[in-house]
C-alpha cells in the first residue's frame, strides 16, 4: 500500500520509512509560528520549562498581526512580549509592524514556507500552507513552546479524504466558493482530525491564490491539514521566492483514502455562508433579500493582491451604497504597495472604501471594523460564528471578494451579475 502526500511528509520528518493513519509520531518541525495572541503564552511556558534558547532561531517565526497596530494598552503589551523575545533570541524572522502583514499571507509571499515542509503554528489557519504542498497545522501555545524548546512536535497521523473537483469554473467563481461548497457538503466536523487532499482538473488549473484560500479554510471543516500536490503552478510560485531547497512529494496511486468525494463544479455559483457556521452555505441565487451594514475584504483567506484586483474590477467607477462601510485590508505591506502601484487603492478610495493597514483586525472582532448589535456584514474572511466580528447579535456572511464588492455597491448581499 502506498502513502498519501501527508503521510510521506510526516514519515520523512519522523525519520521513518512509513507511517499509518492513527499512529502517533514525534516529528521534526521546519517552521514554528506564533502571533501576538498566542506567542505570549508560549513564551511564558518556554521560560517556565527552563527554556533558554529556541531550538533554531531561523525556524521560529513571530508575526504580530491580530491586534496590530496596537489596539490598546493590553495588546501593546502582548506585542512587546514578542518584540523583547525576538531581540533576546536574535530571531531573524520577527516582523515589526510595517514589515508584518497577516501571517499566513506573509510567509508564502516571502518564500519562508516551501513544499515538503512541516509547519506548526499557534494559529488555527496555519493549515493555509498546505497550498504549497507542505504539511501545516494549527496548534496551541503550549505546543508552540514545546517545539521552540525541542524542535519537534507530536502528531497523530491523520486519515486522508480526497476531494476531486471536475468541470470548469464559471466567471466570478474561485477557490473561496469551492471550499465553502465543500464545507457545506461535509459540515464543520466533516474532516475532523483528517487531512483534506484537493485534486482534480479544476485544481490543476487553479491559481495559487485560490489554493491558499482553500487550504486556509480546511480547519473550518475540522481538518488537521488541507493539502495540494505541488505542480508547475506551485513551482512557478515558489521558485521566484525560495531561499532554500525543497522537496516535492506526491501521493502514490495506491495510497489509502478513508473517503473520496467527487464534485462536478461546472454549474457552481458563488457561495455565501450564512451565520453562525461556515457550513451554512447557499448559492448566490438563493440568498434572497439581505440588507447589510458593512463589507470587509481582507484576511488570511482573501486579502491577497488577486483578491484586491477582483474587488477593484467590480468597484471601478462605482460607489459604495449610502450608509454602508466598505473596509479593504491589504494582507501584507507588499500587497498594499502593489495595490497602490496598480492603481487599485485609487479605485477603492474613489468608491468610498476605507483602506486599513495590514491586520487581522475585524476578522476576529479585534478592532478596525467592529459591528454593533443588529448589524450585518459580508466578509471575505473565514468564520461567521456568533459574535465573531463584534456584538453577539451582529451577523457575518462569508463570501468571495467579487460578491463582497458587489454587495457593498448594492447595499445588500448580491453578485457581480446584478450590477
Amino acid at each position, binding site marked *: 500500500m502506498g502513502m498519501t502526500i501527508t503521510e510521506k511528509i510526516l514519515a520523512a520528518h519522523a525519520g521513518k520509512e512509513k507511517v499509518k493513519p492513527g499512529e*502517533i509520531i514525534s516529528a521534526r518541525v521546519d517552521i514554528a509560528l506564533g502571533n501576538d*495572541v*498566542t506567542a*505570549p*503564552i508560549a513564551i*511564558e*511556558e518556554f521560560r*517556565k*520549562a*527552563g*527554556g*533558554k*534558547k529556541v*531550538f*533554531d532561531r531561523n525556524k521560529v517565526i513571530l508575526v504580530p498581526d*491580530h*491586534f496590530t497596530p496596537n*489596539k*490598546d494598552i*493590553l*495588546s501593546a503589551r*502582548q506585542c512587546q512580549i514578542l518584540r523583547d523575545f525576538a531581540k533576546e533570541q536574535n530571531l531573524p524572522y520577527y516582523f515589526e509592524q510595517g514589515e508584518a502583514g497577516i501571517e499566513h499571507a506573509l510567509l508564502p509571499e516571502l518564500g519562508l514556507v516551501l513544499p515538503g515542509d512541516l509547519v506548526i*503554528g*499557534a*494559529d*488555527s489557519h*496555519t493549515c493555509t500552507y498546505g497550498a504549497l504542498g507542505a504539511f501545516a497545522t*494549527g*496548534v*496551541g*501555545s*503550549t*505546543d508552540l*513552546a*514545546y517545539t521552540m*524548546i*525541542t*524542535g519537534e512536535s*507530536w502528531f*497523530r497521523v491523520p486519515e486522508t479524504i480526497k476531494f476531486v473537483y471536475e468541470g470548469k469554473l464559471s466567471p466570478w467563481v474561485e477557490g473561496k466558493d469551492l471550499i465553502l461548497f465543500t464545507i457545506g457538503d461535509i459540515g*464543520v*466536523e466533516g474532516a*475532523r*482530525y483528517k487531512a483534506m487532499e484537493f485534486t482534480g482538473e479544476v485544481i490543476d488549473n487553479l491559481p495559487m491564490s485560490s489554493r491558499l484560500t482553500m487550504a486556509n479554510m480546511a*480547519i473550518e471543516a*475540522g481538518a*488537521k491539514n488541507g493539502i495540494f500536490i505541488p505542480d508547475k503552478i506551485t513551482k512557478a510560485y515558489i521558485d521566484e521566492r525560495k531561499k532554500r531547497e525543497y522537496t516535492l512529494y506526491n501521493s502514490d496511486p495506491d495510497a489509502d483514502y478513508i473517503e473520496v468525494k467527487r464534485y462536478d463544479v461546472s454549474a457552481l455559483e458563488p457561495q455565501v455562508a450564512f451565520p453562525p*457556521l461556515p457550513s451554512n452555505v447557499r448559492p448566490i441565487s438563493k440568498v434572497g433579500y439581505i440588507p447589510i451594514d458593512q463589507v470587509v475584504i481582507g484576511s488570511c483567506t482573501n486579502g491577497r493582491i488577486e483578491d484586491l484586483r477582483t474587488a477593484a474590477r467590480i468597484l471601478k467607477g462605482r460607489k459604495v451604497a449610502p450608509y454602508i462601510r466598505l473596509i479593504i485590508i491589504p494582507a501584507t505591506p507588499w500587497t498594499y504597495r502593489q495595490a497602490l502601484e496598480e492603481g487599485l487603492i485609487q479605485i477603492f478610495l474613489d468608491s468610498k472604501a476605507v483602506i486599513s493597514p495590514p491586520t487581522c483586525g475585524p476578522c*476576529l*472582532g*479585534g478592532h478596525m471594523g*467592529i459591528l454593533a448589535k443588529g448589524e450585518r456584514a459580508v466578509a471575505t474572511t473565514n*468564520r461567521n*460564528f*456568533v*459574535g*465573531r466580528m*463584534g456584538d*453577539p447579535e451582529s451577523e457575518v456572511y462569508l463570501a468571495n471578494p467579487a460578491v463582497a464588492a458587489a454587495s457593498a455597491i448594492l447595499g445588500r448581499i448580491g453578485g457581480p451579475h446584478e450590477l
Partner: protein
Amino acid sequence: MKFRGKVWKFGANIDTDGIIPARYLNTSDPNELAKHCMEDVDPDFPEKVKPGDIIVADRNFGCGSSREHAPLAIKAAGITCVIAKSFARIFYRNAFNTGLPIFESPELVDNVAQGEELEIDGTSGEIINLTRNKRFKANPIPPFMQELIACGGLMNYAQKKIKEGLTHE
C-alpha cells in the same frame, strides 16, 4: 482523580469564540478570561458558574481557533472537566496540554440535563449521573495522552527532554 459537580449543558459545535470571544484576547490572564467565559453563548454564565461545575456538550466542542485561552478560561471559571460527544482537534490537544480534563462519552451526553449532578472517575473513565443513578463509560484515552498526563502535561514532558540534553544550548 475524581470530580463531582453540577452540569451546564450546551449544544453541538460550541466554537472557541463562544467559549472566549476574541475581543478579550488582548490579555492571557486566566482570571480576566474567566469573566467572559461562554458569554456569547449564555451571557450570564460567568455569573452563574460555581467552582466544581462541569460542562457537558454535544459534538465538536471547541471548534474554530487555536486559542489556548479557551481551556484556560474554562479552568479559571472553576469548571473541573468537560464531557462531550466529540472534541475539535486543536481544543483536544490544548486541553491535555493545559491540564483541563476532558472526556468523550456520547451516551452520557444523551442522558444528562442541565443542573443534574455527575461524578467522574478520571482514572477509570466511569461517569455516574447521580441524579438519575445511571453509569456510563468514557472513551479510553490514547496511551500517548496518558503518558502526557502521567508526566504532568506537555511542558513537564519537555523538561524531561531538556534534562536528556535536547536544548541545543
